[in-house]
């Protein structure tokens, strides 16, 4: 059974509509960040979400933790509709930027203590202090970090602190939005090992948003590929990387820089970066798709495709 489920989730943002626009009777313009996403996250899995910047990954994650409402559709947790953040803190989020997600004026210990006090009201001071120590230990940070302020920590340490903070409520699901994108290779390896360990040893379910295809291939059990607010391919990680079926997934995988390839060998993705304002009737990838043809002007549905997974392209087989 799925632990966290997105059902037809959509989110749009109004675009500035000035007086002149109104005088000229121009219609309100909407930016569709997420357009009807169906996605179910199974207990204990690491689900990857990949896609271009602006394709709606973060918006989807914010809706998933209840930081932002959906305009349509619903999020279900343990089968029940979720309306705002889970009061028990069973769904938590880790952000890309460990710089701005921590409070610069509070020590790390105080920040963790605050979160623990919120979710475990029964715990006394000593109990909270013990839990702070346990959380630091969990993410591999020395105890003296508790007395420090965020600015005194390295990028990797700060990201460990954000993970520790997310773990304070004892979550079942962790939505991690680009948690290693700002980190260098060695620290990235440490954080990925940490996430893997939390998943394996504690059964923590992880939704891992990333644009680094190498990391996703290595870490995730399943992968959802998003394009302009929609899922265009969903499959087991191994299958998806071995034989991508949507033309966009293929382009993404081909764009992964190879450390040892000469510069010229990198394949370019065709066409313009997608425009979330553009009204495209048919396949949204058509303007950039090398395989586009007349039939692609029909709207494409995400359909299951044997032996596993689903693809939003009528021509994929």
């Amino acid at each position, binding site marked *: 059974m799925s632990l966290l489920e997105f059902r037809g989730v959509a989110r749009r943002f109004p675009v500035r509509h000035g007086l002149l626009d109104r005088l000229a009777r121009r219609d309100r313009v909407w930016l569709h960040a997420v357009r009807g996403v169906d996605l179910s996250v199974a207990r204990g899995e690491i689900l990857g979400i990949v896609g*271009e*910047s602006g394709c709606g990954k973060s918006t989807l994650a914010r809706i998933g933790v209840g930081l932002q409402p959906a305009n349509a559709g619903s999020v279900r947790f343990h089968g029940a509709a979720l309306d705002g953040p889970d009061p028990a803190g069973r769904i938590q989020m880790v952000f890309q930027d460990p710089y701005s997600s921590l409070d610069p004026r509070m020590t790390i210990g105080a920040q963790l203590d605050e979160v623990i006090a919120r979710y475990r009201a029964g715990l006394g001071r000593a109990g909270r202090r013990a839990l702070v120590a346990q959380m630091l230990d969990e993410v591999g940070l020395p105890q003296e970090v508790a007395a420090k302020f965020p600015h005194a920590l*390295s990028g990797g340490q700060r990201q460990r602190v954000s993970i520790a903070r997310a773990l304070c409520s004892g979550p079942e699901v962790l939505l991690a939005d*680009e948690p290693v994108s700002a980190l*260098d*290779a060695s620290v990235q*390896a*440490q954080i990925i090992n940490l996430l893997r360990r939390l998943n394996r040893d504690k059964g923590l379910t992880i939704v891992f948003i990333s644009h680094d295809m190498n990391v996703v291939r290595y870490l995730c059990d399943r992968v959802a590929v998003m394009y302009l607010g929609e899922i265009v391919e969903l499959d087991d990680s191994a299958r998806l990387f071995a034989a991508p079926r949507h033309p966009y997934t293929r382009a993404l995988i081909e764009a992964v820089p190879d450390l040892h390839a000469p510069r010229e060998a990198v394949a370019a993705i065709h066409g313009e970066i997608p425009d979330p304002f553009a009204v495209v009737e048919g396949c949204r990838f058509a303007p950039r798709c090398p395989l586009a043809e007349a039939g692609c002007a029909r709207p494409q549905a995400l359909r299951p495709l044997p032996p596993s997974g689903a693809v939003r392209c009528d021509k994929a087989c």
Partner: protein
Amino acid sequence: MSLLSIRNLRTEFSGPAGIVRAVDGVSLDVAPGEIFGIVGESGCGKSATCRSILRLFGGAPARVAGGQILLDGVGDLAAMPERALAQVRGREVAFIFQDPLTALNPTMRIGRQIAEVILRHRKVSRAEARQAALGLLRDVHVTSPERRLDAYPHELSGGLRQRVVIAMALALRPRLIIADEPTTALDVTVQDQILRLLRERCDSTGTAIILITHDLGVVSQVCDRMAVMYAGRIVETGAVREVLDHPSHPYTRALLAALPGQASRGRDLVPIEGSPPGLIAPPPGCRFAPRCRLAREDCGSGPAPGLLPRPGTAPGHLDACILSEVPDVAS
């Protein structure tokens, strides 16, 4: 001929616990039209090196304590008074910051912000500056640029924000662009386009770029030459293909080995054990010695080893390991 030539740069921050020697004897040369990559672990001094060039320390208690920063046709930036340096910023040398939010004014529409940069340095009308801003947004592949002109920074995704920052850096056609992790917030396809765009600029206008990144894939994709930094010093430098295909310093090798590309699923990745040393009192000798699997007795004493060529490696490929032969150990 070098556009920029940094000689023995030393940069210090004064902190409560003492002087942090963030950059301690860095030398590098950048030619016109070249993209020079700087990689290394967080805190190794990449940003401090580049911020020293324009003395952009954002109010931090930092100073260039020694060395020269020679910009072709301009002189030694390290010796230049602040007022003269202000003329170099943006016009000759532009800076793209790691965090796009610090570079953007949250209360100003982005079209206006780009136009302001142009108006500050060029005699053009507001309307012309706005047109130029539109063109710059188009150059960095912002879609529907007419609509985005009136957006505030918080309304843009991280990738879009960084493209706006890049557009601002390109506005005055500088000879050198210093880009501190410019594509860290972007996904591969957008990153790919931004890097191509920067590459095009270099090839067509002779603009040079110093690109700081922790992503070796990015270096491989666009840079001509590169330097690997560790604890305030360069430990390996050379043509990108040489350094990535035939790394000779144990630290470079360990960094490459930590990447998931080389690991099989289900096995832990291999980070470098321990963490980089503090820079108030770095260890004597080779600073990597406390974490190096190949360290010998004599690695940990004396002055820090300098960059030297190795017999059999390509010209310009230098490293700072004292071993005459660096064995290939699985880290």
